[in-house]
């Protein structure tokens, strides 16, 4: 039979600056039929986007097609020139880009970007083109289509932008749409709606879709057939249900096992990782548990109480815009007691991180708040010494592993720089300790001297954790610690944090947008929306049958894959 598109033993190589050759794809074969929705899943580095780029001739100029080919309805297209791709791009193959906010040109209006595509692919001009543009937007379910045309991308939400990208993609009614992580940048509620639209569009024009994603949930809901990639190689492929429910390869199994489940809480993920096991680790633990230099109050009072936290951000006026005031957090109160983990969930912009940053003193809350930590009123802290003691005891695990380490310091230095500065440890001791801590968080101590850029995201996050631990904190604020990571890495990391918490008796404030993760990590949870707490309580209650419609909505939107596996 004649497939719509056939990727045949494709191998793509990049010569790297250090002389090595890096293979983004290795003998990959993919087949897609008309109207079929095919998923290509894999974690970062799997090379899944490269497939789409090859099909559209968008590979970076220095990429080399070492072998194999891509053919569209039998004719080979992978070797076409820039000009040769002209009749294909947008016309026969539509493309949906990872991040709608960056995919649209920030300085051109939506209308301009839509119309130029229409004029490129159809003979519609002037009003006809405009009418068609509006029609497309309406098909993509963009409300008030007409006056969106005059807007600029940054004026619209991510969801809307993605719908506009859809409209652009279907403009020439292509046979195939390549959707590269179409929903990664979107909130879970938006994600669902957007995916539905995409599905609808595909159906109505019988357009085939290659859906590139890392999200099993998305695959489960969208795809009939799925390919699993890893490090540019094919792991396995088959009908979605089969691959997801009964993965035949270890990696696939791991992948599935690593996915946090909203419906049931596991105490550990069935993946390798967690604390390193060795003498170093014990030395590290010994250091961390040596607490005589700290005054531990053990009573039934909560470790941290927050009352009426509010935060207003003011952006000063500029030439063109007046001063803007934005209330990020609006009167939030909560307690965190010893050893417990309090979760805060909410969509982007709900102000959940701001709460934590206020607790840490990285943001100054608005007047009229009350923050007590270890029975100490934080607002009254004056002397540097008090502050110091506090900052040692309250630490943070940051969101973005790529910016949370000082790029100009070795891993070890990143971990122990501060405690050296405070004189907690001496030079040699510090070096030892750095090694031990790295072992503790599951990194070989041999990497102590490496610079951050030599580590992967997950590894950097571990270094971040080691740094936080080095202060022997009681309280950890985890600000979306895994949102930037792949599921398997996330699972390992979450395991590690569970272990550390139980061994060191840490108290945690855990912020995440992913209800499933929160379900796995937290005892109690606050649900935030637009700066306010809409619901709070035990996870098992709130995340199972919530009272508040918003929370219910969140749960609804969660892509869940229903195939249960043993």
């Amino acid at each position, binding site marked *: 039979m004649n497939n719509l598109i056939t990727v045949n033993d494709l191998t793509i190589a*990049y010569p*790297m*600056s*250090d002389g090595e050759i*890096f293979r*983004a794809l290795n003998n990959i074969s993919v087949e897609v039929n008309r109207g079929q929705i095919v998923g290509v899943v894999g974690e*970062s*580095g799997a*090379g899944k*986007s490269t497939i789409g780029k090859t099909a559209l001739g968008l590979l*970076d*100029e*220095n*990429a080399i097609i070492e072998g194999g080919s891509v053919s569209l309805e039998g004719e080979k297209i992978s070797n076409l020139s820039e000009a040769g791709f002209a009749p294909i791009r947008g016309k026969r193959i539509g493309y949906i880009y990872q991040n709608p906010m960056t995919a649209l040109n920030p300085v051109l209006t939506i209308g301009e970007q839509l119309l130029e595509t229409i004029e490129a692919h159809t003979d519609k001009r002037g009003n006809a083109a405009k009418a068609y543009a509006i029609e497309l937007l309406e098909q993509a379910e963009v409300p008030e289509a007409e006056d969106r045309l005059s807007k600029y991308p940054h004026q619209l939400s991510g969801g809307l932008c993605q719908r506009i990208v859809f409209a652009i993609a279907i403009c020439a009614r292509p046979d195939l749409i390549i959707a590269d992580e179409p929903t990664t940048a979107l909130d879970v509620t938006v994600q669902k709606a957007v995916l539905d639209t995409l599905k609808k569009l595909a159906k109505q024009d019988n357009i085939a879709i290659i859906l590139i994603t890392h999200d099993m949930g998305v695959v489960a809901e969208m795809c009939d057939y799925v390919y699993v990639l890893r*490090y540019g190689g094919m792991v396995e492929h088959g009908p979605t249900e089969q691959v997801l429910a009964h993965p035949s390869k270890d990696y696939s199994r791991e992948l599935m096992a690593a996915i946090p489940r909203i419906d049931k809480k596991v105490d550990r993920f069935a993946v390798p990782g967690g604390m390193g096991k060795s003498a170093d680790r014990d030395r590290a633990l010994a250091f961390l548990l040596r607490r005589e230099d700290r005054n531990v109050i053990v009573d039934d009072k909560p470790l941290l109480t927050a009352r009426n936290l509010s935060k207003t951000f003011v952006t000063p006026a500029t030439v063109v815009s007046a001063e803007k005031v934005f209330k990020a957090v609006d009167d939030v109160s909560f307690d965190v007691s010893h050893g417990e983990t309090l979760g805060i969930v909410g969509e982007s912009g709900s102000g959940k991180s701001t709460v934590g*940053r206020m607790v*840490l003193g*990285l943001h100054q809350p608005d007047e009229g708040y009350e923050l007590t930590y270890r029975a100490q009123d934080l607002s009254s802290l004056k002397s*540097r010494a008090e*502050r*110091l003691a506090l*900052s*040692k005891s*309250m*630490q*943070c695990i*940051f*969101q*973005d592993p790529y*910016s*949370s*380490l*000082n*790029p*100009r*310091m070795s891993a070890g230095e*990143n971990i122990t*720089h*501060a405690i050296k*500065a*405070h004189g907690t440890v001496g030079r040699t001791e510090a070096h030892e300790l750095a090694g031990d801590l790295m072992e503790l968080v599951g990194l070989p101590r*041999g*990497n102590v*001297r*490496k*610079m951050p*850029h*030599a*580590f*992967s*995201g997950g590894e950097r996050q571990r270094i*971040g954790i080691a*740094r936080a631990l080095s*202060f022997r904190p009681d309280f950890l604020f985890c600000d979306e610690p895994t949102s930037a990571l792949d599921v398997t890495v996330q699972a390992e990391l979450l395991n590690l944090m569970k272990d550390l918490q139980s061994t060191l008796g840490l108290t945690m404030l855990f912020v995440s947008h992913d209800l499933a993760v929160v379900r796995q990590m937290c005892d109690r949870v606050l649900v935030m929306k637009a700066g306010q707490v809409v619901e709070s309580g035990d996870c098992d209650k709130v995340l199972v049958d919530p009272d508040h419609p918003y929370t219910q909505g969140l749960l609804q939107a969660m892509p869940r894959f229903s195939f249960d596996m043993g």
Partner: protein
Amino acid sequence: METAVEHTMTPKPDKPEPTMWERFRKVFKGHPMAIAGLIGVTLFILTAVFAPFIAPQNPYDLAKLDILDGLLPPGSRLYDGTYSAMGTDALGRDILSGVMYGLRISLFVAFTAVLVGSTIGVLLGLLAALRGGWVETIIMRAVDLKISFPGILLALMLLAIFGTGVDKVIYALIIGAWASKARLVRAVALSEMKKEYIDAARLAGLSDFRIMTRFLLPNSISPVLVVLPMSISGAIGAEATLSFLGVGVPITEPSLGLLIANGNDYLLSGKWWISIFPGAVLVAMVLCINVVSDRLRDHANPYLRAKD
């Protein structure tokens, strides 16, 4: 960049950090122009350093000069028998020697001025970014002020107060160099400030000074390093202009710029060698410096490096 990210994310074989020399080689490998430039720069610097030993004449020792040797065309012999490959100027100063010594002055002036100026600029820029508020306002307004203050008047002031001298020119150029750097660094530092490692440092209770020196500085400096060579050639040009305006280095110790300026008077009368030779050398040197700096810039530009 997708590819760049993927690359860092793939498990790396345990490779030691590249040494200075390896980095260096990586930057210049396969860029003949840049290498040529590099060689050029080194040659110029060597000439400047060893001028007193290789120059046929000491052009700064008035007793050695004789106007009877004046305006000799290239390839003549001076009264005392010295061979003058590039001819002499009106005062019997051997142009070749003049160029060697001039190179010395020009490079010295430019380098010290730019280095000191940039250091000041960088520190102020960082301070502005770190402290914000009135500190920032004052520093940035000072930058504005400097931009609207003419260098010639500045140089004149220094000259009037302290008299002529190479050091005065350096002061003038330092004051010329700091502002742009302060601007640049502040911009970069501000974006660095948004990153979480700064929060981490704050959280660790580190002092502002430490944050500035160990965290902000090393991460904000590279753009400055990239423009540094260009500033240096800029400073050489500026020094030349000051000399042309009569407020530059002492006329008895001409820099390249001053040699050119003097030669200017003779261009129309066909005594080309007096300004063309120093001019050519100046251009060549600046050219080398810039070729090298361009290479460094391209290399520092992440968009391009991912592709290299």
